[in-house]
C-alpha cells in the first residue's frame, strides 16, 4: 500500500505540483489584485455575471413560476381568513384614501402658493429581479437593466412603496442592487416627526439597525424614516420604513418595501447636483468696470473744459 502511494506520487511528478502551485498563486494573486484595485476586478465580476446569469434565465423563469404557484396555492388554503383581513384593511384604506386625497389637494395648493420647483429629472427605470446573491452572507439582487439603460452606480432602487437598496455593480444588461439589509449598506436618513438625522446600517438581519442618531431620546418606535439626501448619493424624501425597538432596546427599521417578494424594482435616475465648492469671493468693482468709470469721468471733465 505504502509503496503504491509512493509510486503514484512519483508518477505525478513535479509537473502536477507545479501546476497546482501556479493555480494557487494565480487565485491568490487575483485576490490580492482585488484587494488593491477593487473597482477593476468588480467591473470584471459584473461582466462575468452579465455573461452568465442571463443565460440561466430560461431555466430560472419556470422554476420561479413553479415556486410562486406553490406559494399561491398555500395562500388559497387560508382564503377565507385572508378575505376577512382584506375587507377590514379595505375599510381602513378607504378612510386613508379620503385623507390622502384631501392632503394631496392641499399640498398642490400650497406648492402652487410657494411656487416650488420640483426636480423634473427624477424619473425611473423599472427592472425585473433575475437572481439573488445566492449566499446567506450577502443581501443583494440582480435586475435585468444595466448600463445599456443608463443605470449608474449609487442610484436608489425602490419597489412600489419604499427604498430597497442602491445600485452597486453595473454590467451591460444587468445591475446588482445592494439591499438595505446587507452588512455593507449605510443609508443616511431622517426620522419624522422628530426630524433626527441617523444612519440605517444593514447587519444581515431582516430589520437593519438605526444608529448614529443625533439625539436618540427623541426617536420613538413608530416614527417614519425617510432618506435625508446627505452625501448627495440619494434623493431626499424616499420612504425607508418605520422605527421599531428590538428586545435589546436598540432602534431598528421595519422596511416598508416588501422584502419577501421583490419582483419589480424601479431605479431612480439621480444626477449629481452642482456642488458649491467656492467659499465666496470678495464683491467689488472689477478692474474693467473701474477703468471705464475713470474714462467716463475724464470725458465729462473734458466736456466741462
Amino acid at each position, binding site marked *: *500500500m505504502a509503496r*503504491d*502511494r509512493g509510486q*503514484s*506520487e512519483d*508518477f505525478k511528478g513535479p509537473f502536477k505540483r507545479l*501546476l*497546482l502551485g501556479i*493555480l*494557487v498563486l*494565480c*487565485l*491568490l*494573486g*487575483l*485576490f490580492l489584485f*482585488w*484587494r488593491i484595485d477593487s473597482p477593476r*476586478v468588480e467591473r470584471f*465580476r459584473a461582466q*462575468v*455575471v452579465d455573461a*452568465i*446569469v442571463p443565460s*440561466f434565465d430560461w*431555466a*430560472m423563469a419556470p*422554476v*420561479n413560476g413553479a*415556486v410562486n404557484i406553490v406559494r399561491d396555492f398555500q395562500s388559497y388554503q387560508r382564503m377565507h381568513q385572508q378575505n376577512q383581513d382584506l375587507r377590514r384593511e379595505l375599510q381602513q384604506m378607504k378612510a386613508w384614501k379620503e385623507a390622502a386625497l384631501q392632503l394631496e389637494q392641499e399640498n398642490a395648493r400650497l406648492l402652487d402658493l410657494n411656487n416650488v420647483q420640483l426636480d423634473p429629472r427624477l424619473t425611473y427605470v423599472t427592472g425585473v*429581479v*433575475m*437572481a*439573488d*446573491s*445566492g*449566499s*446567506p*452572507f*450577502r*443581501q*443583494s*439582487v*440582480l435586475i435585468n437593466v444595466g448600463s445599456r439603460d443608463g443605470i449608474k452606480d449609487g442610484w436608489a432602487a425602490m419597489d412600489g412603496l419604499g427604498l430597497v437598496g442602491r445600485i452597486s455593480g453595473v454590467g451591460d444588461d444587468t445591475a*446588482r442592487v445592494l*439591499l438595505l*439589509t446587507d*452588512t*455593507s449598506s449605510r443609508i443616511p436618513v431622517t426620522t419624522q416627526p422628530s426630524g433626527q438625522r441617523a444612519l440605517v446600517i444593514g447587519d*444581515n*438581519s*431582516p430589520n437593519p439597525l438605526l444608529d448614529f442618531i443625533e439625539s436618540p431620546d427623541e426617536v420613538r418606535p413608530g416614527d417614519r424614516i425617510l432618506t435625508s439626501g446627505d452625501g448627495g448619493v440619494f434623493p431626499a424624501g424616499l420612504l425607508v420604513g418605520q422605527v421599531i425597538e428590538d428586545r435589546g432596546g436598540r432602534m431598528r427599521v421595519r422596511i416598508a418595501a416588501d*422584502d*419577501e*417578494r*421583490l419582483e419589480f424594482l424601479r431605479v431612480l435616475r439621480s444626477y449629481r447636483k452642482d456642488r458649491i465648492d467656492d467659499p465666496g469671493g470678495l464683491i467689488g468693482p472689477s478692474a474693467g468696470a473701474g477703468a471705464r468709470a475713470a474714462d467716463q469721468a475724464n470725458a465729462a471733465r473734458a466736456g466741462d473744459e
Partner: protein
Amino acid sequence: MSDTRLPLSWLMRALYATLSVGIVFAHLLPISTVPSGWAGPDLFLALTFAFATRRPDYVPILLVAVLALGIDLLLQRPPGLWAAITVIGVETLRNRAPALRDLTFLSEWAAVSSTLVVMTLIYRVILTLFAIDQAPLGLSLIHLAATLLVYPVVVLVTHAVLRVRKRAPGDLDAARGRT
C-alpha cells in the same frame, strides 16, 4: 478496457461540472430575499470532497479551480481567496485518498471535517488580516456545521445514485495498466 474507461471518467467529470452548475443555479434563484438567521450547507464543497476522497481522477484540480473561482465571482465573495483555499483543501484530500480507501467512513468524515475546519479558519484569518468585511462568526459556524452534517448525505447520493465508489483492488490493476 481502455476504450470503455476513458469515456467513463470524462463522463463523470462532466457530471460533476453539471451538478456544480446546478447547485449554483439553485443558490441564485431569487426565492427569498429576506436575510435568514441560518446558513445552508456549501453543497459544492461537500460534493467536491465526496468525489475527491473516492475517485480523485474524477475531479481534476483545474476543473475544481475554475468552478470555485466562478462561484466566488457569482456569489459576491472576495474573488480567488476561497477558490485557492478550496484547491489546497481538495488537493490535501486527494493525497490522502489512497490512505482513506482502506478506512471506515467515520475516519473519512473526520478527515473531511478537520480539512474544512482548517480551511474556514484560514479564510477568516486572512479576511481579518486584509481588513475585509466578513460574515458574523455565528453564521459561518452554522454554515460549517451544516456542510459537515450534509456530507454523509452527499456521500450516500454519490455512492448510491452516481455510483462513484472507491476503487476495488481489481480496478486498481486496470488503472495501473492504463497509466
